[in-house]
């Protein structure tokens, strides 16, 4: 299949088109604007809808409207823009409307900067909006957004979807339907919430994804996602060259989090280092997974700084030597 050199933003946009995206609503913000730009010419080509909204809030509620009629709909933003969408995200979950939101995350807090970062983990995974809710959070491999890499598009295979017997469309030929996002009676709302919790439990059963890489009998487990995972793979390889036994667990879904495998691997390795491009957010989920069974170390960079292979490897060796683990070449 043909490899094309493409920016991550464009690859995401093209993938959305191929996956049947019907509408896109968004508001410009670096470093994800190419998603809009690409779709502004690509979607109309396919007879689909591109609309630049007046704000991120308008965009998320346009998404809400399109989702309510059962369309496949996408929005994207970054940092401040994603914060502005938090109310809307809470509403989407409450109304049980499906939608895809891309956060090409950047340095925060505040206006911060436009360099890559992972400091929106809590917001995405714990739920930055109000109420008890969760959304499936995917963390794709790599330095997305502005970077180009060869990309291969496979034809997407869809399982047939269940009929959207909840979508509104005008009641023609059926009883009318409505989409709501509230239940004024506490007993009612608790039931709604319990049903949501059921759904989240089902996600936790069915949607966990991760990748394991490296030594089968590691002395240290590395944990990282996205861009960091790429670097950690180099660290594992580089480490192996130096005789270090390292393995990586890369969560692909941040929620639901691959806690079980994380714990298993961590216990096997005896120690963990979690590396993030923030000051320690996934760290909490790693610690929750590991339940105090082994020490969890942390190395974080932020503000757009990216951990280097060199520095990370140094941290790794420090930990191993501090904890008295000998590697093949002896330290």
């Amino acid at each position, binding site marked *: 299949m043909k*490899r094309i*050199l493409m920016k991550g933003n464009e690859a995401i946009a093209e993938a959305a088109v191929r996956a049947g995206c019907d509408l896109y609503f968004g508001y410009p913000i*670096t*470093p994800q604007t190419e998603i809009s730009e690409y779709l502004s010419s690509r979607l109309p080509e396919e007879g689909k809808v591109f609309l630049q909204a007046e704000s991120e809030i308008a965009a998320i509620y346009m998404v809400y409207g399109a989702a309510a009629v059962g369309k496949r709909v996408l929005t994207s933003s970054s940092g401040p823009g994603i914060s502005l969408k938090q109310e809307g995200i809470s509403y989407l979950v409450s109304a049980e409307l499906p939608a895809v939101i891309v956060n090409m995350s950047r340095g925060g807090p505040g206006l911060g900067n*436009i360099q890559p970062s992972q400091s929106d983990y809590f917001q995405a995974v714990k739920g930055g909006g109000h109420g008890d809710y969760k959304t499936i959070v995917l963390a794709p491999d*790599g*330095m997305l957004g*502005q*970077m*180009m*890499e*060869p990309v291969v598009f496979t034809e997407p295979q869809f399982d047939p979807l269940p009929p959207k017997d909840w979508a509104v469309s005008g009641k023609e030929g059926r009883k009318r339907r409505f989409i709501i996002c509230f239940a004024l009676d506490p007993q009612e709302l608790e039931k709604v919430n319990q049903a949501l919790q059921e759904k989240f439990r089902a996600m936790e059963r069915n949607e966990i994804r991760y990748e394991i890489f490296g030594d089968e009998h590691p002395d240290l487990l590395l944990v990282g996602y996205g861009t960091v995972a*790429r*670097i*950690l*793979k*180099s*660290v594992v*390889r580089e480490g192996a060259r130096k005789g270090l036994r390292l393995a990586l667990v890369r969560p692909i879904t941040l929620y639901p989090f691959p806690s079980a495998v994380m714990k298993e691997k961590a216990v096997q390795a005896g120690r963990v280092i979690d590396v993030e491009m923030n000051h320690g957010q996934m760290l909490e989920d790693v610690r929750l997974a590991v339940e105090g069974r082994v020490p969890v170390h942390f190395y974080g960079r932020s503000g757009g700084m*990216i951990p*280097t*292979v*060199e520095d990370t490897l140094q941290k790794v060796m420090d930990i191993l030597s501090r904890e008295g683990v000998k590697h093949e070449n002896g330290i």
Partner: protein
Amino acid sequence: MHVETVIAGFGGQGILFLGRVLATAGMIGGYHVSWYPSYGPEMRGGTANCTVILSDQEIGSTISDHPDIVVVTNQPALLRFGPLVKEEGLLVINSSLVRGTGHCPTVEVLNVPGNEIAGAMVGDPRTLNMVILGALVAHRPLVWEEDMRLALEEILSGKKRELIEINFQALDAGKKFIRERRDAGVSERPNE
């Protein structure tokens, strides 16, 4: 093979494009490749730069602390990126605009008077970037010449087709410069 190249210069000099051609050629040649721009607010002025990695292994980090090759097309770029080149790495300098070679003792330096070649030989000063690339690849065969041509055709498809030819010419002019110099017995040496 694993080569990390940083290309830096003015915003308008086609720095990102240079990197893209190199990366695309690498991809066509079967390498793992990555291209990573420094992206700031869109204001012009100041320097632009990008990192291209060609490797026969999966690429981890796509930024480079100590690149194997640094290409600089203006003075500020030399000041900022020159010192980062790996020991025994290669520093390619657009000598039309850059005076000196910075403080990089153990580095091989390739001086290419890019603007002059682009202006005089190619007849279009905007082709500076391809002149430099042609020279770089002639000096250090990172990718196949043929793959660079394919890359240009892929990138400049559609409305920009007409630009392909002049870019070919610029690549050739860069190559020719190196060949002639080599034939004349000039060899690059670490900066004394």
